[in-house]
């Protein structure tokens, strides 16, 4: 809880900006753990319902643990017209999960994003912060293999 206290303290000086607090928590834990949200609620004297309303409103926050590799498919317009839906379908099929879910072995979490603003590379798949441009259905398989090998 030391880390959490530090995050909260950073924002104590000005108006408590819950969104930035949650960003920091998620950066630390990769998601928003329930016990931490309860702790913040007490520490900030803020109803838990308010914290949950923020955590569920914004797409960037996750209430469930994420897998080891975070795989994000861009579904911006440029990616859409260059075949992103087929890429997403292939990923869902290969991983056996839907967008927003995590594989049973906790290796991959699949998410989508509205636009990364790197449309020249469309369609884009980001895995662990690395951008893979001009992704096609057959490239997906190789990508997954590459990252799956990194599992320990």
């Amino acid at each position, binding site marked *: 809880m030391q880390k959490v206290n530090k995050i909260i303290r950073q924002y104590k000086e000005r108006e408590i900006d819950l969104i930035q607090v949650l960003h920091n928590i998620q950066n630390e834990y990769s998601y928003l753990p329930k016990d931490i949200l309860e702790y913040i609620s007490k520490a900030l004297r803020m109803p838990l319902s308010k914290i949950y309303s923020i955590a569920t409103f914004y797409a960037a926050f996750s209430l469930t643990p994420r897998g080891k590799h975070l795989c994000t498919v861009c579904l911006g*317009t440029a990616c859409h017209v260059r075949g992103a839906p087929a890429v997403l379908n292939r990923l869902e099929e290969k991983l056996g999960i839907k967008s927003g879910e995590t594989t049973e072995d906790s290796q991959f979490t699949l998410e989508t994003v509205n636009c990364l603003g790197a449309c020249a590379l469309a369609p884009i798949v980001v895995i662990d912060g690395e951008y893979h441009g001009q992704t096609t*259905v*057959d490239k997906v398989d190789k990508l997954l293999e590459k990252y799956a090998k990194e599992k320990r």
Partner: protein
Amino acid sequence: MLKKKDKAKGYRLDLLICAGTGCVSNRSFVVKEALEKEIARRGLQDEVRVIATGCQGFCERGPIVIAQPDAIFYQRVTEKDVPYLVEEHLIKGRPAKKLMYVPEKDALPIPKMSDIGFFKHQRLIVLRNRGRLDPENIEEYIAFDGYQAVQKVLTLMKPEQVIAEIKKSGLRGRGGAGFLTGVKWELCRASTDHPKYIICNGDEGDPGAFMDRSVLEADPHSVIEGMLIGAYAIGTQKGFIYVRKEYPLAVKRVHIALKQAIEYGLLGEDILGTGFNFSIDVVQGAGAFVCGEETALISAIEGKVGRPRTRPPYPVEKGLWGKPTNINNVETWANIPVIILRGADWFASLGTEKSKGTKIFSLVGKINNTGLVEVPMGIKLREIIFDIGGGIPNDKEFKAVQTGGPSGGCVPKEHLELPIDYESLSAVGSMMGSGGMIVMDEDICMVDVARYFLNFTLQESCGKCVPCRLGTKQMVEILNRIVEGNGKEDDIELLEEIGKNVKLASLCGLGQTAPNPVLTTIRYFKNEYIAHIKEKKCPALVCKALISYIIDPDLCTGCVACAKNCPTKAISGEPRKVHKIDQTKCIKCGICLTVCPPKFNAVKKVTPGVV
């Protein structure tokens, strides 16, 4: 006090390598490192410098390296090309031909940046510093007249004069609505309540638009300088920059720029010794499209759920924490310093009668030259798409361009001669929006595109008002059944009716514009809707339920590539014999089409009535 620094002192040559999101994703930092190593190996480190710049705009051709002072343009440079580039350009002193840009259907490489069609027709004001300076070094911005406008404003002008100048320039908000910036400032200044705030809206949510990201990445100081001028004119000491979380590099560069501006006494207290105080905080968004709407954005900065509220009162009266707040978009702020330095008359001489200056467009989709272009208002659509954008790849036919993001509409090829400004785009049913231009060719199904955008707004609708929350839902359901081949006779009329009501009755801009993509596609491409509904076919061969994949027995050589890759084992056939797809097992994933070698080209998409 602020002196131009002799920036190239001691170096005979600068290699400017693009470090915008696009090029970084194409490993431009690896290329940079390789360049530095090779230059050192050749003992040129005291003569040649490698500088990482912001986005150059020609993202299609990244990673991009520009050799100055001659402005030789090198494209798609990989680390393997580095020894060749260094040998040719730096040692032998002749341009490296193999890395130059060659236009489509042309054999002659073009060495100079300014001769390339993509750059030739542009007019850079907001992007004036793109690709020529290191965005992480404030001294370079200062060397290019940076912070001179602030100096002029703080020492020579009264706030009212600044506002008068901006009003006279005719600058309108670049975020989409096009409200006159000077008038907004004046309203905010006139408000008697204190304190006041200013906000830079960097929540660039329109998919396919990335000019704000580029400006923040390539030239963050121009935005900070614009905000300083605005703060002085309006009379505030506090500003916020709200940036999308999806733009990590922009967030990083803004933080660096703010830190340096504080170190140089350009932010903080007693700025330039004039007694003027101003500071800026960065707020990161959390992935909600609606937060681009100003009242929702204010709510998000306050740390709340980003839901819009009714206006009036407008933020200039009651904004952040109930205080007068002026919100402008990134591109608008970046225009300000140039207007102050070069004068309102000069700015007003560019553009059309009601839309002054330039606009940045992001040219994406089915276009040869994907990238960011800044052009004078009033330029024709044809010039943007064909002269700058280089036309449509693979000899396909241009069908439409979608402008204004999910709030905009599709402009068909009949309007290619349209001069682009705020009014003309509204007249054809679209809008300027933030400036995304998604180019579509004959392979794009307009019903599918309309459904894509509406699905987007449905998901991003905050749910506060009923017309937007339920209206978009109903429309998506109708579009879903149309693309699935279950459309009903009167679905088009029903879509139009619901669409008009959603526009009329929604609370904020998101709902008021959400039906536009549907309404414009019905207006210009009604026959495609009819084909889906009546003939159960998708003329562009996109909608899964209405197409099937077949193997042409005359072309198939039995290479087994398709059968090997088919995820449902729907393809049968022995090696070197014709293969066949079992339609009952096929899930139409299209992988057979992707893997079928182009020399055979045996897999085809078909829809009833079209072969």
